[in-house]
């Protein structure tokens, strides 16, 4: 990482023992919480499962040739005619739920992470600019942010998707538009504090270009709160995507995410085939809670006020 060069120059008297870098210290602190380790392990397992879905899944849920309509709506653990066991049951089309969930996880994670990264880039840039430049630009950006935050997230996403129509790319755009303001507000607050510090003045004295000061000097020092909020926002993005897809205005039916799988199963809830809706729901829930656990721990260790 090139950014670390700037941080090490400016880091004042290190409060850590010299043998340990800041990163190692943070790692050790992070790992001292069992819940956080559990959360991290679950997130890593889910991410790996999503990446390796085509190899892990017993069946390709998009390949109609592999589906057997005779196997539809089988409860978890039941066996197909060919002696194949559906551990999580099958849905209305005879699709193996486990395979469906693995593929759905992929789409949920792509949308969640993708929109979070985009929102972070856009929001953090505006926040940095507002915090560093101040004045009218700051007032304008912050007025827009305030306004934006006064509308509920679901509503803004609904507006955008009502205009743009459904599709994975549109969902990512909608969630990005919904979330950038949170990043902007957080980064601006940190940037305003950092702006007054000596290393920024030093960089200004060297007449470095503004873009370099913003992204190479200021940004690395605004990272801790940004990392925390980014983690939390990934969970929120996944949850929002699931909600939108459940409402039928999110991802298309050909690329079902966890939310859409839950929606598909919802039709069968009233007739008692509850697992079609529950199993992807449990996967979604475990993922969201795990990410939140990691985020909570990150907030604890990265918040300077909690440092002893």
């Amino acid at each position: 990482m090139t950014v670390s060069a700037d941080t090490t120059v400016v880091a004042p008297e290190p409060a850590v023992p010299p043998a340990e870098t800041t990163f190692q210290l943070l790692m050790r602190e992070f790992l001292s919480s069992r819940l956080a380790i559990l959360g991290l392990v679950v997130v890593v397992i889910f991410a790996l499962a999503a990446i390796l879905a085509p190899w892990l899944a017993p069946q390709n849920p998009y390949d109609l040739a592999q589906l057997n309509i005779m196997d539809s709506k089988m409860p978890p653990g039941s066996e197909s005619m060919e002696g194949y066991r559906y551990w999580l049951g099958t849905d209305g089309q005879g699709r193996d739920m486990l395979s469906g969930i693995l593929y759905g996880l992929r789409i949920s994670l792509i949308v969640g992470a993708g929109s979070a990264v985009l929102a972070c880039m856009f929001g953090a840039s505006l926040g940095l600019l507002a915090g560093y430049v101040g004045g009218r630009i700051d007032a304008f950006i912050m007025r827009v942010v305030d306004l934006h935050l006064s509308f509920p997230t679901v509503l803004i996403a609904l507006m955008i998707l009502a205009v743009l129509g459904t599709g994975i790319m549109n969902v990512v755009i909608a969630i990005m538009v919904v979330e950038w303001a949170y990043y902007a507000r957080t980064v601006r607050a940190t940037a305003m504090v950092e702006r007054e510090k000596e290393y920024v003045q030093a960089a200004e004295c060297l007449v470095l270009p503004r873009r370099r000061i913003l992204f190479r000097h200021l940004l690395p020092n605004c990272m801790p709160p940004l990392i925390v909020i980014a983690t939390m926002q990934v969970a929120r993005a996944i949850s929002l995507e699931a909600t939108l897809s459940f409402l039928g205005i999110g991802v298309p039916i050909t690329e079902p995410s966890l939310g859409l799988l839950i929606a598909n199963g919802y039709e069968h809830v009233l007739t008692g085939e509850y697992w079609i809706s529950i199993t992807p729901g449990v996967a979604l829930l475990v993922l969201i809670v795990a990410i939140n656990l990691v985020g909570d721990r990150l907030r604890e260790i990265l918040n300077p006020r909690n440092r002893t």
Partner: protein
Amino acid sequence: MTSWLLRRLMQALMVVTVVSMIVFAGVNVIGDPVEILISPEATQIEREQIITRLGLDQPIWKQYLAFVGNALQGNLGNSFVYNEPALDLVFSRLPATLELAFCAMLLGSLIGIPLGLFCGLYPDSKLSRLIMAGSILGFSLPTFWVGIIFIIVFSVHFGWLPSGGRGETVEFLGTRWSFLTLDGLQHLILPAINLALFKISMILRLTRAGTRETLSMDFIKFARAKGLKPRRIIGVHLMKSIMIPIVTVVGLEFGSVIAFAVVTESIFAWPGMGKLIIDSIYVLDRPVIVAYLIMIAVLFVVINLLVDVLYATLDPRVRVGGAA
């Protein structure tokens, strides 16, 4: 105060203008306005007639002005599906949504405040730790998922409560309401709790934080030293001071409850505005979509304005800060 209010009003007006521009641009530039405004069953000659009549051959800014002119007269076009004015349609669904949102807010306050008070007064007891852990779930569980679980447990498994619809309604003050009949109440309870869950967690945490902060203040210590009964200290002195932030948040959150009602209404087939917009998006009933979006934007601007004015009246510091 007057100039502050005037500026605030101008800002509100600007927001509505910007939203109307975005919605208009979305419908007219990104989508094909002919396809949007003319029913797909129209013949070629009808199409051309309608295009000239609607002024779709005019430049875009003229079209926008015409749209605003019509909108100000309450005319946002007719719904393709119901063939009645879109705005009337949205308004006719408003009472059902308001009923649901109001019940959810009421439940949120009635459950959240006492629980929060308990957690604030006995922060170390096992029960309050349990309640606090539960409130984290209330924050992180997606609303639609909880709704499905409610239906599976209470409607399908136990068969206690109906899974959707409004049930029997009674006419009162010109519209029909569910909460006045037993059947209607049974239909109302699951969606209301579902919608309230997030609010309960929020009000609970707010009350707890306020209680813990206020308990250590001098006037509480003084009331204790005076020998007042704990009941009176908590019920009058403490409550009075923690209620201001709670009331403001409850007011502010009312808007977000209406927005989140979209999800709850879809799950429980509650015939409110939220269900209408989702159904309209499915069938591309664009006049209704436009009418809903503009109305909800106006609603939000009004709520935010009211809260701001209320703040300024309650707390003079806001006014000074706003003028600086």
